[in-house]
């Protein structure tokens, strides 16, 4: 890879051990993906919950935090994905002091690096959405697919280590979605059934993600008749990325790089239909009507202020069943607004709990499931029901309305 004089200086250790580590990391990754050089990025977004990074990961951050200030501080605005522990509410969930301590150590190290602890996977709704053509280094697959597809920004999936490296150097290897050729459509889908609401959007995204099947495929979708709102398209993208490792999609006439099919070379591809049976087949494992529900979860992605209001309205005047718990995950910035507007109070009066800055599957889902006896989990997130099968849950999927009604009944309606 060709390095600029600044990048070479970082590699030579002239700007400290953290930036040297970062460039070395980027060279390894860049070589695997045939990057010829680096591209400057304007923001980094890092996924790094303590369950994933573990003791070894926290130690890495602490080693960097111990460096002199000029050597340790990130070079560009750098923000964080949800945390693993809401430090204002972890014991009642069955999270341990050990987990909380790891979280505290990580937070302290991040602050010394100059990282903004936004603790959100919906930064494109709450912090600073990227602009079309802007190169960024984002983590969280849901953030990346939304930013690429809906905003027209340019980012690969930057896992935590690479987002950290990008934050420290202000650049990332130029490969994948930073290049025009990887943003062209590689597979073409036509939908006949219009998605209505968040869960439908998620299921459609999941079907397309599963059919697309790899990081290097870019689906283009035809037949979407109504412009989805930001929450609908975030559920669709998050599920597509979750089921397919898909980082970018286009919707003809809706997303910015695809006003017409030929803009993304979709006219050269043979189209496949997304059928009702595709949709039914995806939903089938997540049925379970009539079964007792242990926990209802609204998360993955975290809830926007609009979703918080929708949940609050559904909770109004009702009470949760004594055998069921309900958790709502939202970013700290949304929490403050929702609290100010009385939405948190409405949700918690119902008997639910609103968590700040976490996301359910990133907060030791296995351990808190075992501690609380949660087995049957219900959510409106197609992404989360995909993930939690590996964590010992029996996940089921329903709309937000049916999730609340099930929480009242204590069983899946």
């Amino acid at each position: 890879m060709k390095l600029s004089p600044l990048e070479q200086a970082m590699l030579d250790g002239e700007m400290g051990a953290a930036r040297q580590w970062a460039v070395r990391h980027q060279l390894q990754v860049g070589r695997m993906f045939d990057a010829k050089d680096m591209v400057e990025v304007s923001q980094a977004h890092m996924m790094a919950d303590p369950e994933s990074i573990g003791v070894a990961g926290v130690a890495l951050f602490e080693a960097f935090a111990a460096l002199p200030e000029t050597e340790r501080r990130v070079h560009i605005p750098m923000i964080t994905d949800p945390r693993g522990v809401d430090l204002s509410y972890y014991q009642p969930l069955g999270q341990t002091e050990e987990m909380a301590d790891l979280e505290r150590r990580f937070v302290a190290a991040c602050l010394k690096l100059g990282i903004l602890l936004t603790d959100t996977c919906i930064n494109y709704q709450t912090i600073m959405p990227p602009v079309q053509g802007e190169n960024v280094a984002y983590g969280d697959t849901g953030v990346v697919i939304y930013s690429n597809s809906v905003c027209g920004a340019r980012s690969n999936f930057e896992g935590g280590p690479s987002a950290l490296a990008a934050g420290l150097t202000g650049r990332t290897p130029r490969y994948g979605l930073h290049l025009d050729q990887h943003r062209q459509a590689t597979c073409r889908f036509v939908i006949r059934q219009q998605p209505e609401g968040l869960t439908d959007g998620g299921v459609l995204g999941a079907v397309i993600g599963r059919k697309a099947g790899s990081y290097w495929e870019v689906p283009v979708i035809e037949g979407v008749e109504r412009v989805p709102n930001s929450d609908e398209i975030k559920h669709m993208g998050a599920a597509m990325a979750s089921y397919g490792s898909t980082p970018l999609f286009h919707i003809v006439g809706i997303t910015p790089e695809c006003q017409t099919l030929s803009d993304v070379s979709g006219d050269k591809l043979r189209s496949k239909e997304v059928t009702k049976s595709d949709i039914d087949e995806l939903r089938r494992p997540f049925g379970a009507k009539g079964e007792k529900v242990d926990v209802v979860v609204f998360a993955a992605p975290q809830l926007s202020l609009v979703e918080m209001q929708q949940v609050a309205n559904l909770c109004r005047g009702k009470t949760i069943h004594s055998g069921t718990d309900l958790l709502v995950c939202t970013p700290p910035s949304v929490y403050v607004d929702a609290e100010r507007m009385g939405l948190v109070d409405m949700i918690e009066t119902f008997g639910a709990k609103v968590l700040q800055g976490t996301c359910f599957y990133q907060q030791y889902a296995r351990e808190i499931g075992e501690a609380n006896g949660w087995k049957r989990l219900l959510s409106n997130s197609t992404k989360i029901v995909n993930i939690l099968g590996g964590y010992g849950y029996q996940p089921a999927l329903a709309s937000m309305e049916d999730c609340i009604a099930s929480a009242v009944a204590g069983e899946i309606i």
Partner: protein
Amino acid sequence: MEEELKCHVGIGGVVEGEALVANDNFSARYDLDRIKGVFSRPTHALAGQSYKDKILVFNTAKGGVASAWMLHEMTARGIAPKAILFNAANTILAQGAALAGMAMCDRFADGDVTTLISTGDFVTVYPEQGRVVVKRKGI
């Protein structure tokens, strides 16, 4: 009998070990019980099997970014595969391998790596050279 497979230049150092192969995809977050060191997702082709010290062979990577940290975390605790081979890696797994110092290669010249290598084969991975040597089980 040894057979040599060519692939794209990968990440990490030379390693050898027994292959565990599935025509399935991989995510450290979705598929593993990392404490026990086994595949825990009931629908995964390797459900219940141990991955410790294996050379894992899959079609592609899937799902979230957590795997990038998790390979490092697993390696630090000594309950990790020695290498992962894919038909097509994604960026996350490559980034994770770089942090963990785990060997990883993809894009095999002779076709589908999940059919080129079988479970139980003894495999040596040379990521820098883009080369994998396979000694067939029982031969």
